[in-house]
């Protein structure tokens, strides 16, 4: 089974999110970018599936900040090919444009299955995977927590609220949005990533020039004005603990003692 995993770079949510001058996007020039964590789950599931069925895993990323590191890391983990699609992406990429670029590139590739992260922190215009599937006119399953070989195709476990799981069979080409792989994404050492870098195995191609307007306009981005905020407890850990004890005791949540 030949599997393609699109990898997206997204701002690191741990960082303070600075906005650009007109307040309509994050300040992409200075923020730290990391691999979309759901794409890392998709890569892990793809590697597990390849180990079970044979075949190949190809990762593909568009030329966003620090994407090389993400693609080399994927090669070090066991991906067979890594492809970087070049173009002007400095001002961010909508899901519709990303999906259109991927669809154009996949048109020239041989593949059976696309596994992609179910969402990303900035997919304001929808999740890439489901848009991609419908541009390709293939089946799609979202919020998948397992993809396994099944009667020549795959069986996808799709998660619903409350832990309910639906199993679906896919008999043709499909795009699956991965929520979580069957195991935590594997660790790879820096030395193996370096070895992948030195192998020079990163293929490069131009991203297709696509017409993929979202039809949406971001007027402004802003931190949510919360109607309330926690009362922050002062002091060191012992002071904080003492205050929490006082609060829970006032409410009768600590049953005994004075």
């Amino acid at each position, binding site marked *: 089974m030949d599997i393609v995993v699109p990898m997206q770079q997204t701002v690191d949510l741990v960082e303070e999110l600075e906005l650009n001058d007109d307040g309509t996007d994050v300040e992409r020039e200075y923020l730290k970018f990391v691999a979309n964590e759901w794409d890392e789950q998709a890569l892990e599931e793809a590697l597990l599936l390849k180990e079970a069925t044979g075949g190949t895993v190809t990762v593909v990323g568009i030329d966003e900040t620090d994407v090389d590191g993400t693609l080399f890391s994927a090669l070090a983990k066991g991906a067979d090919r890594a492809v970087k699609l070049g173009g002007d992406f400095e001002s961010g990429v909508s899901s519709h444009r990303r999906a259109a670029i991927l669809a154009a590139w996949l048109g020239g590739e041989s593949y059976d299955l696309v596994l992609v992260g179910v969402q990303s922190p900035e*997919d*304001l215009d929808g999740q890439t995977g*489901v848009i991609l599937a*419908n541009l390709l006119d293939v089946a799609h399953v*979202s919020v998948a927590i397992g993809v396994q070989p099944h009667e020549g195709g795959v069986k996808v476990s799709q998660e619903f609220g409350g832990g309910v799981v639906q199993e679906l069979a896919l008999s043709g080409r499909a795009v699956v949005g991965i929520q979580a792989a069957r195991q935590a994404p594997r660790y790879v050492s820096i030395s193996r990533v370096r070895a992948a870098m030195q192998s020079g195995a990163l293929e490069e191609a131009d991203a297709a020039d696509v017409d993929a307007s979202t039809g*949406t*306009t971001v007027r402004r981005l802003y931190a949510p004005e919360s109607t309330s905020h926690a009362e922050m*407890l002062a002091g060191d850990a012992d002071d904080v603990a003492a205050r929490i*004890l006082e609060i829970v005791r006032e409410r009768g949540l600590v049953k005994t003692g004075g």
Partner: protein
Amino acid sequence: MGNDIFVLVEHTQGAVDAGTHELLGKARELAAQSGGRAVACLLHSGARAAADGLAADAVLAVEHPALEHFLPEAYVKAMAALLAEHEPRATLIANTTVGMDVAGGLSARAGVPLVAYCTAIDLDGDELVATSQVFGGKLNAEVAVDGAAICSVVAGSFAPAEGGSPDVQDVAATGLDDLTTSFIARIVPEVSDVDITAEEILVSVGRGIGGEDNIELAQELADALGGVVSASRPVTDGGWLPKARQVGKSGQKVKPKLYIAVGISGAPEHLEGMAEAELIIAINTDENAPIFDVAHYGTTEDLFDVLPALTEQIEAAVSA
């Protein structure tokens, strides 16, 4: 573009999801503004009765054997046909598993713009203006669409509307005969040893706990308080705690008397499962973590210092 507001009805073989009623509540409000109707789209196989009592002006009921279970491919194609035929002003879809599988695909197929993760929607002339929750809940986006739009909506954003006697119109299904997706099984989880929805005190751990070995710190606090340990998604995904302990959109919705959030940032998916707890205390070193917006009390002191200190003080108080 017409004036109607469409809602995708989410149901399990006729049992309608609570989220659908929230969407209908908003749809009625928007329809009053646009001068159109609130129209529920019911995709089903032998579950037409689910249309009765929906708070909609009309129901478009599409029946086909492929719609007995939720097959994403079938839903997207059936909805795309309805949008092409009726050209609604807006289409509201819940941001659930079903919604995530339908909204984007519908946008691609029907060529209608999508605003995802909406928590507010308004009409302003020919424009639709929505508030979208992005960047893990750390930022809101005010997004405008000129013309027809699809909105996927975060649970709990709108007041539900129930009760009504809509005009039900049966619509022939097209294009659903040659699908490559088929249903195998629906698996409902077995009841586990611990039912976190029934507990009064939860000590809930998130990614900040750092690893499986550190969960013991939370367990000791839970033991001292007479509660149990629950978790956010990264912890159960990592296999550090069983899935039955997960709080949030894809886990359990809980409403305990005390919820201590330990190393949990408070992504929207987590808040959806616990924001109604009676008392929420959050421990997180990131002072900007969204969990502090729903917590009653909070601290940015290190959890590895606070947990043992708190456990010790509670044990002392209990035995005093």
